[in-house]
């Protein structure tokens, strides 16, 4: 029975996301199934995670559950109506040659292995004691977190100041199951993996104009061991991989916007990027990276209205959550010292050891295979051969966050900052690893004379 309830909860999420996605497609535009799946999941999950705490102010329990369900079903119904009336056709990426067939088969096997691993992997320490704990207490309190949790000094280890994207998604499952079921709540994690593979496929095939390169990018995801194994992996219920998926989606849709500055691409980019600070505190760093480039591009094209509006969803979520935690007097994170020049000068001697430790971690094949080594080869090649802004954008999207995350350990408040790096840096690097994977997977297309832009115009999706 719990399995059926968990599946219904997932379907409601997809229904909400499907409705939102279909509204954004133009009339008679073909809708690639992989894009529909990825966007439906990400937008639906965002909808549920925002709706629960917002509506939870006014109602709780069954009323809250059915109110959110009703809104999601209405959105899904609108999506279906739009699908019928506007002549959209959902398209499947049918393999066109033996290479594509082989890669599709590999991808299918990988999905099956991932599902098998998902069935066995337990939620990890942080997965339970930082993220799921909030869902558990919210469920026990009728769907929204009790105020006393935020100021409970004996539960500060569970970081009550962390944002609620993942916990509210888990609460949604609990509301449907009617119990805090740690076994079935894990069902929310495989869709993030599948969405990541589909987004890699979309991004790489659109950029390169070759479907097999997209399939290759999606297939390579499985060979990134830290995504599915070890401390901090997706299946253990950590928020880093879901944040990586949001970051990848915002990069893919920003590139889409650069190719075609449509309303649809602008809105998807703005909303997906805006969801990042709602997933994890570090999301604000990734959001700022994206927004700096986006606002610059909008302003360059003299689209000042978009330059002002695009950051709004992210700002609203980030500011909303920060104001709420300030009002509730939630104790702040004490992992870092205040960011000041005085602290920087006092701890500047750490720089050498930090760089050594970061390099040691990024070259660890048990976590990353040879991702970062290949990235080091691919980036100069892309920059030299293409000399296009898209190459610079992709490279900077991976390099800037890694540099920022490395530098922040100068301000670490841990007694041993090396322990701090070893504990947290692999998870931070995971957040940008999917963009690095996208960057390396389009490298085979970089040798062609016409470059990525012209190839992209011949993309199978155009």
């Amino acid at each position, binding site marked *: 029975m719990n399995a059926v309830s968990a599946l219904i909860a997932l379907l409601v999420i997809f229904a909400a996301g499907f409705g939102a996605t279909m509204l954004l497609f133009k009339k008679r535009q073909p809708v690639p199934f992989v894009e529909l799946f990825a966007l439906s999941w990400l937008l639906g999950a965002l909808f549920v995670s925002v709706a629960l705490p917002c509506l939870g102010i006014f109602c709780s329990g069954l009323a809250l559950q059915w109110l959110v369900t009703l809104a999601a079903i209405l959105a899904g119904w609108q999506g279906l109506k739009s699908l019928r009336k506007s002549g959209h056709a959902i398209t499947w990426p049918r393999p066109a040659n033996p290479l594509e067939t082989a890669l599709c088969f590999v991808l299918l096997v990988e999905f099956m292995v991932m599902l098998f691993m998902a069935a066995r992997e337990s939620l990890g320490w942080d*997965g339970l*004691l930082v993220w799921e704990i909030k869902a558990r207490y919210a469920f*026990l309190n009728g769907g929204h977190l009790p105020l006393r949790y935020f100021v409970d000094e*004996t539960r500060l*280890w569970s970081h009550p100041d962390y944002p609620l994207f993942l916990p509210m998604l888990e609460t949604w499952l609990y509301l449907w199951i009617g119990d805090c079921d740690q076994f079935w709540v894990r069902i929310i994690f495989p869709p993030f993996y599948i969405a990541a593979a589909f987004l890699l496929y979309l991004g790489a095939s659109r950029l390169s104009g070759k479907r097999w390169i997209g399939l290759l990018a999606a297939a390579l995801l499985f*060979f990134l061991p830290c995504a599915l194994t070890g401390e901090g992996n997706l299946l253990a219920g950590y928020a880093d991989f879901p944040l990586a998926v949001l970051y990848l989606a915002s990069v893919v849709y920003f590139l889409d916007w650069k190719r075609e500055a449509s309303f649809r691409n602008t809105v998807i980019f703005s909303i997906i990027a805006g969801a990042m600070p709602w997933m994890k505190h570090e999301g604000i760093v990734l959001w700022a990276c994206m927004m700096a480039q986006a606002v610059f591009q909008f302003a360059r094209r003299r689209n000042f209205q978009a330059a002002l509006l695009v950051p709004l969803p992210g700002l609203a979520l980030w500011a909303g959550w920060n104001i709420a935690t300030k009002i509730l007097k939630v104790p702040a994170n004490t992992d870092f010292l205040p960011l000041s020049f005085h602290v920087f000068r006092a701890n500047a001697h750490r720089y050498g050891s930090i760089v050594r430790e970061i390099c040691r971690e990024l070259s660890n*094949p048990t976590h990353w*295979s040879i991702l970062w080594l290949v990235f080091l080869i691919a980036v100069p090649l892309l920059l030299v051969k293409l000399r296009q802004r898209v190459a610079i954008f992709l490279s900077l999207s991976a390099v800037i966050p890694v540099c920022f995350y490395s530098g922040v350990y100068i301000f670490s408040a841990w007694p041993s900052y090396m322990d701090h790096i070893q504990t947290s840096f692999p998870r931070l690097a995971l957040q940008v690893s999917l963009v690095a994977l996208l960057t390396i997977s389009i490298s*085979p297309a970089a040798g062609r004379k016409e470059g990525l832009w012209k190839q992209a115009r011949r993309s199978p999706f155009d």
Partner: protein
Amino acid sequence: LIFWLVIFAAFAVTGLRGYRNAEDTPKVTGTGANACSDAILKQSISTDDGSQKLTDAFAQMPALRPVAIFCPPNKAGAIITSQFAGYLAWPRQVWPVTVNARIFDKTLADFSTPSFAAILFYSVKPRAPLPGERQIGPVLLLVPHEMPNP
């Protein structure tokens, strides 16, 4: 193109080896509602169904009084056990107390007050059996504070 295909093949092979060498993470062994917390708790308190046993024990205590958990200094598993006790004890507060052997009796006396609903002993034992004590696995002992009969 061949260069890149070789690179990607190396990526795949190294990735697969990464799976083989990855650190062990807890695995669920049943389909119960506490499957994950049981899998992690088993590593620290060495008992099956630890979450349910702790939840049942907490359910018999007054909801508003806190619980103390006594742990020895530098004991592996003490942090995770006290955090899991806090996780399961909601809405009760769980106060971790690192106890030193020299002042054990004094610390115990300090916490044996009606303001605490119970004391959990993790990998430490009181010198003499205490009234109402209940063993949860080999390393965890729960001693509820005796409530006077109304």
